[in-house]
């Protein structure tokens, strides 16, 4: 036995989880929602994903090399890929290519690595990148494509590419609109289609509702837009939100994320939205629309729960979710922006370190007394 014995600290065993695995599980949980996106919004999401992934991974790779890390971290923590996927879903489906790339580079280089890389960033990288784009280029960032079933047949790959690269954009948009029209005609509900929109891109329902808000006209606006299950926009958003919800529940079941942040966030949103709607139904949207439209479930399960920028302590997580919910509803109901996930996430991220310091965990045995054994 002349072998030198290998030495290591205890414990000598580990379970199989790793940072990369956690991140990849989150990506897998997003896949159903991405497919629904593809179904309702066409090929735009595919190119968003492609551009985001390439630019994020290249940026991450360059910065890892510059910081003297090995490139296999790209796979080992997979965090850049997750940031790319989240940003790709958050961006409008036909975002110009340069905006996508700028957003990704900003997210990875400035929001993440300038603060010390994975585990040290204060703000959620994807949301940082998104807000950067939203403030710098408000118009293209609020121009969404209308939801139509089987939209991948209308917004085809070549059309999406040409729109994204701004080659013959108007013509391609028009073609897509025509196809959508024809497609729907065969399905025998042309009236709904005509009633819904007159072009294939436009402002989202939330933006339109925001415009109606000063006129105290929201309630009748909803009636005019026929926001029920026969409406494509509503149906599409309902499906996508449900898939985010399902993905989120799967993550909770597989113990990738904790239920506290999404639950407290959603409860806060529901409570505030219901109160506002009860008080002034003409000014504020009903609770169901708050949950369905925009990125409410996406934010609750996939963005707020980013462990680096959240609070992992049980009580802290609840407080974190409540603060995020309050900011979210303040912006949506009283602020200038139609959707509020990105801003509420960033503002709550800023509170996270303080919440973390101020919340304590009950120590083992803090409540017990020596006489406990005699307790009746």
């Amino acid at each position, binding site marked *: *036995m002349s*072998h030198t*014995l*290998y*030495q*290591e*600290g*205890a*414990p*000598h*065993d*580990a*379970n*199989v*989880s*790793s*940072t990369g*695995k*956690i991140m990849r599980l989150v990506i897998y949980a997003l896949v159903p929602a991405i497919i629904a996106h593809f179904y309702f919004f066409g090929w735009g999401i595919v190119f968003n994903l492609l551009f985001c992934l390439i630019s994020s991974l290249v940026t991450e790779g360059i910065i890892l090399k510059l910081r003297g890390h090995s490139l296999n*971290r790209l796979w*080992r*923590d997979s965090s850049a890929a997750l940031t790319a996927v989240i940003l790709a879903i958050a961006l409008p489906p036909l975002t110009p290519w340069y905006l996508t790339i700028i957003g990704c580079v900003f997210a990875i280089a400035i929001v993440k690595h300038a603060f010390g*890389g*994975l*585990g*040290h960033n204060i703000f959620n990288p994807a949301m940082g990148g998104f807000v950067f784009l939203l403030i710098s280029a408000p118009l293209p960032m609020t121009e969404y494509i209308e939801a139509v079933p089987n939209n991948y047949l209308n917004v085809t790959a070549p059309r999406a590419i040409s729109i994204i690269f701004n080659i013959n954009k108007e013509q391609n948009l028009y073609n897509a609109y025509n196809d959508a029209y024809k497609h729907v005609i065969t399905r025998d509900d042309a009236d709904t289609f005509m009633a819904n929109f007159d072009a294939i891109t436009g402002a989202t329902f939330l933006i339109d509702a925001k415009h109606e808000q000063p006129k105290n006209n929201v309630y009748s606006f909803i009636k005019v837009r026929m926001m029920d299950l026969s409406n494509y926009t509503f149906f599409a958003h309902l499906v996508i939100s449900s898939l985010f919800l399902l993905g989120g529940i799967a993550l909770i079941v597989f113990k990738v994320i*904790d239920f506290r942040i999404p639950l407290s966030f959603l409860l806060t949103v529901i409570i505030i939205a219901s109160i506002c709607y009860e008080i002034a139904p003409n000014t504020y949207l009903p609770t169901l629309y708050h949950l369905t439209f925009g990125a409410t479930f996406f934010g609750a399960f996939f963005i707020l729960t980013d*462990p*680096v920028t*959240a609070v*992992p*302590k049980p009580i802290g997580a609840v407080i974190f979710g409540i603060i995020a919910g309050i900011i979210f509803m303040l912006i949506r109901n009283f602020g200038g922006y139609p959707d509020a996930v990105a801003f509420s996430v960033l503002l709550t991220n800023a509170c996270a370190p303080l919440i*973390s310091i101020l919340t304590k*965990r*009950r*120590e*083992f*045995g*803090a*409540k*017990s007394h*020596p006489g*406990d*054994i*005699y*307790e*009746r």
Partner: protein
Amino acid sequence: MNRWDRIRKGVIFSFKGGVYPEEHKSAHVFPSHELPFPKKLVIPIKQHSGVGGEIIVSEGQHVGAFEPLTASNSPMAIPVHAPLSGIIEKIGPSLVPHPSGLAEMCITIATDLPAMQVKYNNPNFPLYQMENPATLLDHIKNMGIAGLGGAGFPTDIKLRSSVNPNNPCELLLINGAECEPYITCDDRLMCERAIEIVRGIKIIQHILRPKFTVIAIEENKPQAIMAISAALNEEHCEKARVTSIPVKYPSGAARNLIKIITGIEVPYQARSSAYGVVVQNVTTVFAVGRAVLLGEPLVKRMVTISGDSIRNIGNYWAYIGTNVRDILNACGFTPDENPRVIIGGPMMGYTLPNANVPIVKTTNCIIAPRGQELKRLKPQVDCINCGRCAKVCPARLIPYELHDYCITEEHNLALKCGLKSCIECGCCSFVCPSAIRLVESFREEKAKIKAVKRKEEKLKIAKERYAAKRIRVQEEERLRAERKAQALAKAKALAELKKSQKDNTQEDATRALKGAEKDAAIAKARADAQAKANTSSKTNGDTK
């Protein structure tokens, strides 16, 4: 249902945290075996937590089996005994099982042939019911019994703190949980020596007089549960029951076990005896039984030898002092590249830098894993605050936060964050997705805090010494000044006397003498005042 009903009926509670590592307990099916007769035994004189005793034997002396080798009056020192008869070959430092390969004082015995063994007779108490608990406790100490669950705390001290009538033992908890993976020696011992364990329990019951006794066994040991239950009936051990508890690591940690059985959380700053509970490991109880009934000191214990690099895994009876390398070779050790030899379980044990070390009282398991049987650590990456460590911490700490304080050497914050409550169970490191060595950093921080404390104490002593020296020097100066003033005054007086003698006037002379005395007194007063002023200003300076 009140607490006692629950305890009596075996209704259990659960504790927060804990992990479920792979069990690897295949060695539990193998009945225990004797190892080959050792030719040489190396007995470290300190094998428990406390202090070592003084050696009472000398080189070249022949000792009998069970003969004490050390003795001490200190309560924290418990003796070691010769497991076999033989000649003392060497007394001196030798490698002991320790993660850093320390050498400590050891006694090496060249054993006699098996047929020529001589036994030293220790007192025994077969009729222990007639004995005073104090006598039995002294005997337990003299037989060298320390907690065999792993910590090695002197058993007699633990028992003594509950003999006190102001702080009686209400519940005796026998720990047969054995929650660490691989280790099966307690399981085997309970299966094979249930009667002797129950006799040990009865002795401890006689000493402590608890209201009730619970033997807690994890439910993955059905044979042990049956054996102990049967033995309790057979030995008519009353007010006792076996409670099976769910499999979870670390339910065998004393405080977690108390929580499971009674629902009481004993804080880490308090002794469990203050809460009326005494926890003893089954192996310790077995050793107590043998020591009291047969007068056999703790010289032999069951050790689990396991791991894929071992051909004949199983449970073996090993004499204290047997060489680990010899044991491994006897069991068919076939090392792979970078072999690991782990003493203790995979969660809390340590890798040996050198296998040429003896078995000690607290060695319960030797693991020689092969390849990825026990996963080798991945390179560490940065913490992502996922909070998994906090979820599994059985001490309800927040390890990721504590880790931050440890690596930035924020000693006070680390202590505030509960560093002292950490039992180093390894759950946090086990689940960490970033492969951060949390437990290692906590151990390091504990050592650093200890070093800082020692340094501070040293500094305090040095300061006190310096202040004392300064006062002494000032006192000397003052005395010297006083003597000088007196001498000067005397000289002056003499000079004046001579002068007056020249003048031949008696009156002048006497007057001069008086004047000189006055001068001396004034000078002395002045010197005193000055010295006082000096010291006071200096001491003020000190306090500032």
